């Protein structure tokens, strides 16, 4: 009885609590409104803070626009800044009401304190409201000519904002000219911001140089300014200089020589932008000794970037990846700097392995193979695949490495760790396809047969079957093994089926006595029972070939095939040049041209073009860039498909 009473009262209490909470939620804006209009200054201040806090977490407080604005005329800097922030977020939604704020802005822009003048100009530019523009012009004109460099550097940036909103206004009022003039400002930071603003406006105008074109005199000013401004300004100036086409060879050399010192800067972006400039200027500088000297100077700072935070390392590595495709030998001595640390994030490890394969030269291939062997013993399955794959790629590039690589891979097979065996088997047969007449063929085939019971995945089994057909003379009982695979033919993966067809035909041609029964059985099953049309077709072709002209069959099936090629993905030259010209940018990190992920805006709100855009971006992915994090992935798939068409 008692319990029941308690239960019901508890339940009632809970309902009441829920109601109260709901009322509170509904009324939060109402309550804030009252507080914003409070007669006490402290309460109004607290209310403004709460409005901003709500705005940050995504609650809609746009309804409080007029109430917030009432507090704008204040002598409290904190409140002022918070209200400006509120305006930046909501001005677009209530453009007609923004006019109420203009007075305060205009007054602030004439304040005696430069901090306040700059704040007003900066914020007005961020409102993105056409209506504000008319009121912005006068204060902006004054601020562009302000005595204080802090105000000037803010004002030149504001011109870019105005230009974005309304080009005509920016040009007719002479603002763009004023920014061009500011390139000669006595203050380096104003110069740097003018460069940023002009580059932005130039890009908005389509980058054709209508807004701004560098000339020899300006380049001189910029080269002086780069020594004087802070790190971010240096980046802006270096980026602009990288875009410049020098008038003469002598000028190009001069620019390179004067920016070389930037390679010593602590900020990685200053370093990388300098490298970008140097690589771009390679087309203008003709003197070989200078080019070699510049290239050599780039190396140590690039290596030092590898000691940065992991995210910076990642971006650095993605960019370093491009450099050996232009300068194959440049980094080859630095191979040890790219060895993976145990605690590197996995995305850094992938990139390091990819770079390692690219920069390795014949002389240090042994050291790298030892290192890759260590990686192949790690626990992360994908990374192990990547490491074994890298051993394969390295071997396809450097014949001298083949013996050692085969030793390493056979040793890995002997570990009998499932994931290692699969990929090692595939890679070993690839090496055989590259060096078919090699002395280690016997070793490889025997090792594969020894661990045949562990070879499980379709790719790996297809590789084994291919090796059995190709090198049946090196193993005892090849017929028995092929026959074993033939037993499960119908259910097998089509890759294995195709491999088996090729293998039994080759085996039969080499050992007509032993192979006859097997080849008939396989061809019969394949043509009658296999569902895959490719497999059936291939089987018919072999069958007719064998019955029509055995001698021709022999020359075709057992002919010497072109060795398989080096499969380290290389970017096509125009794309490579484009990415190197954008070194450090998102495009060179993704290794995709910018047009694939930067869409033209459709409206001011900047809603992306949507799904359609995303799709065609995916479609024209080229292989090299499809999986930035797993360089191995694409090639594994390519491996899996045995090259039986060539085998014919």
């Amino acid at each position: 009885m008692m319990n029941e009473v308690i239960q019901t009262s508890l339940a009632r209490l809970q309902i009441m609590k829920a109601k109260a909470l709901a009322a509170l939620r509904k009324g939060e804006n109402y309550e804030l409104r009252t507080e914003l209009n409070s007669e006490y200054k402290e309460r109004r201040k607290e209310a403004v803070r709460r409005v901003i806090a709500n705005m940050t977490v995504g609650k809609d407080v746009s309804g409080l626009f007029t109430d917030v604005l009432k507090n704008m005329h204040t002598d409290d800097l904190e409140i002022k800044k918070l209200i400006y922030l509120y305006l930046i977020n909501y001005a677009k939604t209530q453009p007609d009401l923004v006019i109420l704020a203009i007075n305060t802005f205009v007054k602030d822009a004439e304040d005696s304190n430069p901090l306040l003048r700059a704040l007003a100009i900066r914020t007005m530019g961020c409102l993105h409201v056409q209506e504000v523009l008319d009121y912005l012009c006068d204060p902006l004109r004054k601020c562009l000519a302000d005595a204080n460099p802090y105000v000037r550097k803010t004002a030149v940036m504001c011109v870019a904002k105005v230009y974005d909103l309304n080009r005509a206004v920016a040009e007719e009022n002479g603002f763009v000219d004023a920014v061009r003039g500011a390139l000669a400002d006595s203050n380096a930071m104003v110069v740097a911001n003018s460069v940023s603003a002009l580059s932005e406006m130039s890009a908005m105008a389509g980058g054709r140089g209508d807004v701004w074109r560098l000339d020899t005199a300006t380049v001189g000013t910029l080269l002086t300014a780069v020594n004087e401004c802070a790190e971010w300004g240096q980046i802006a100036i270096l980026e602009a200089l990288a875009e410049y086409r020098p008038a003469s060879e002598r000028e190009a050399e001069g620019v390179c020589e004067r920016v070389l010192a930037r390679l010593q800067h602590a900020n990685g972006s200053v370093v990388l932008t300098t490298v970008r400039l140097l690589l771009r200027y390679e087309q203008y500088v003709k003197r070989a000794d200078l080019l070699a000297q510049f290239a050599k100077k780039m190396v140590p700072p690039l290596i030092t970037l590898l000691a940065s935070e992991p995210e910076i390392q990642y971006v650095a590595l993605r960019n370093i990846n491009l450099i050996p495709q232009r300068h194959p030998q440049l980094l080859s001595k630095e191979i040890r700097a790219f060895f993976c640390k145990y605690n590197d994030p996995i995305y850094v490890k992938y990139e390091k392995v990819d770079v390692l394969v690219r920069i390795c030269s014949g002389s240090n291939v042994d050291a790298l193979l030892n290192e890759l062997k260590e990686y192949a013993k790690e626990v992360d399955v994908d990374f192990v695949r990547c490491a074994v794959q890298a051993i394969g790629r390295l071997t396809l590039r450097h014949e001298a490495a083949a013996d050692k690589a085969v030793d390493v891979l056979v040793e890995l097979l002997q570990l009998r760790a499932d994931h290692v065996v699969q990929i090692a088997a595939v890679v070993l047969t690839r090496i055989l396809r590259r060096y078919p007449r090699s002395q280690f063929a016997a070793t490889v085939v025997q090792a594969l047969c020894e661990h045949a019971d562990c070879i499980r995945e379709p790719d790996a089994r297809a590789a084994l079957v291919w090796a059995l057909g190709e090198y049946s003379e090196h193993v005892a009982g090849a017929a028995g093994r092929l026959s074993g695979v033939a037993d499960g033919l119908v259910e097998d993966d089509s890759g294995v089926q195709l491999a088996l067809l090729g293998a039994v035909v080759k085996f039969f041609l080499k050992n007509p006595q032993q192979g006859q029964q097997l080849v008939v059985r396989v061809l019969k099953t394949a043509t009658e029972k296999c569902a895959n049309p490719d497999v059936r077709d291939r089987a018919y072709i072999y069958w007719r070939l064998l019955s029509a002209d055995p001698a021709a069959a022999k020359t075709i099936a057992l002919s010497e095939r072109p060795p398989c090629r080096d499969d380290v993905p290389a970017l096509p030259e125009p794309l490579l040049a484009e990415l190197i010209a954008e070194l450090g940018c998102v495009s060179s990190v993704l290794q995709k041209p910018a047009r694939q992920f930067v869409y033209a805006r459709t409206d001011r709100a900047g809603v992306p073009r949507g799904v359609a855009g995303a799709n065609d971006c995916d479609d024209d992915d080229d292989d090299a860039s499809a999986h930035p994090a797993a360089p191995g992935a694409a090639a594994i798939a390519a491996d899996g498909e045995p090259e039986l068409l060539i085998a014919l």
Partner: protein
Amino acid sequence: MASSVFLLDLKGKPLIARDYRGDIPLAAIDRFMPLLQEREDEEGTGLPVLTENGVTYLHLREKDVYLVALTRKNASAMTLLQFLHHLCKVLTEYFNALEEESIRDNFVIIYELLDEMMDYGVPQITEPKILQEYITQESHILEIMPRPPLAVTNAVSWRSEGIVYRKNEVFLDVVESINMLVSPTGAVLSSDIRGAIKMKVYLSGMPELRLGLNDKVMFESTGRTAKGKAVEMEDIRFHQCVRLSKFESDRTISFIPPDGEFELMTYRLNAQLKPLILCESVVESHRGRIEYMVKAKAQFKQRSTASGVEITVPVPSDADSPKFKTTVGSVKYVPERQAFVWKMKQFQGGKEALLRAHFGLPSIRDDDPERRPPIAVKFEIPYFTTSGIQVRYLKIVEKSGYQALPWVRYITKNGDYQLRMPDPSTSATSRLPPI
């Protein structure tokens, strides 16, 4: 350049959202977390650069906070990530720690900082010392409101005028960290020295400093012969206060320092080094037990002594009932790190120390390959630099003409110092004597 910058909690909810260009709707940030997780599932990695629907998300994580920059242009990824790191540093300097709680408590000032540090998506000023001069936690009345310090736009953007100290002093610490990767057989796979010259500057006014090192390139170019050893530094990087063009032309390091603590320069030497502390280990794994023998050797000069030596040896995750015996120092099993740690307060050059460890293993174990982390070594060797770098002089000139004392200290310590473990031998005959 950046369109907006966000600070997010671990679930991806915005703590701070600052829109700089208005060309990406703020709601786009809601896609960040799903995108990151999707990629994590696919590739096992949370890449720092992600793209979707024309928006590029660049991020890094600090404790329980994500710092994210969004852009819809082909902006410089390197610049934006560097900016986020600088933002991280500034916020840490302001609030001692950058974590969710400190951000919630200080969101007002963080918005002020973001407003000052970036304009229209272009980084402006990120020097914490200077920002602290005019963006402070106390609120201001307009009349006494701070003005932007001259330093913000000056050529010397890192130091304000009018600093006064009663006693003018400079402390120089030359710290060399040894990065080393050693194979199970004791062969050095890669090694380098990362040096840093750190300064603590307590000087009045606008002092001009000039630092002289035994820099080989400089000696050669001036035709001077060094008395002792000269060091060839491979890659030198300077704090932005150092006049790079001056260094490029005649290798002098001249600068007006920031006030207080900062890192003047870092350098790298790619020397083939002998491991300063080498650990040779033998591991034997038998049914139900695993045994270790580790021999540590201090391979540096006898007159130096390493202090705070800590050798961390990984063991299987299911190891139990540890037994240890050492000739020097103490050993502790740390199950949560799956390792035992051998500590030696002092380890003199040329000496050797031996450790034996024995662990029980469950008799039934799965055959999955074990993770094989390397042995990690921590140490510090005071009054010693591996490279032999020396400060030859530090000249301090200020127009008021005061005398200032430079103090110099040298120290070598471990950087990323990893020694790979050998595979456990499983032979029936034990080579290790019982403990």
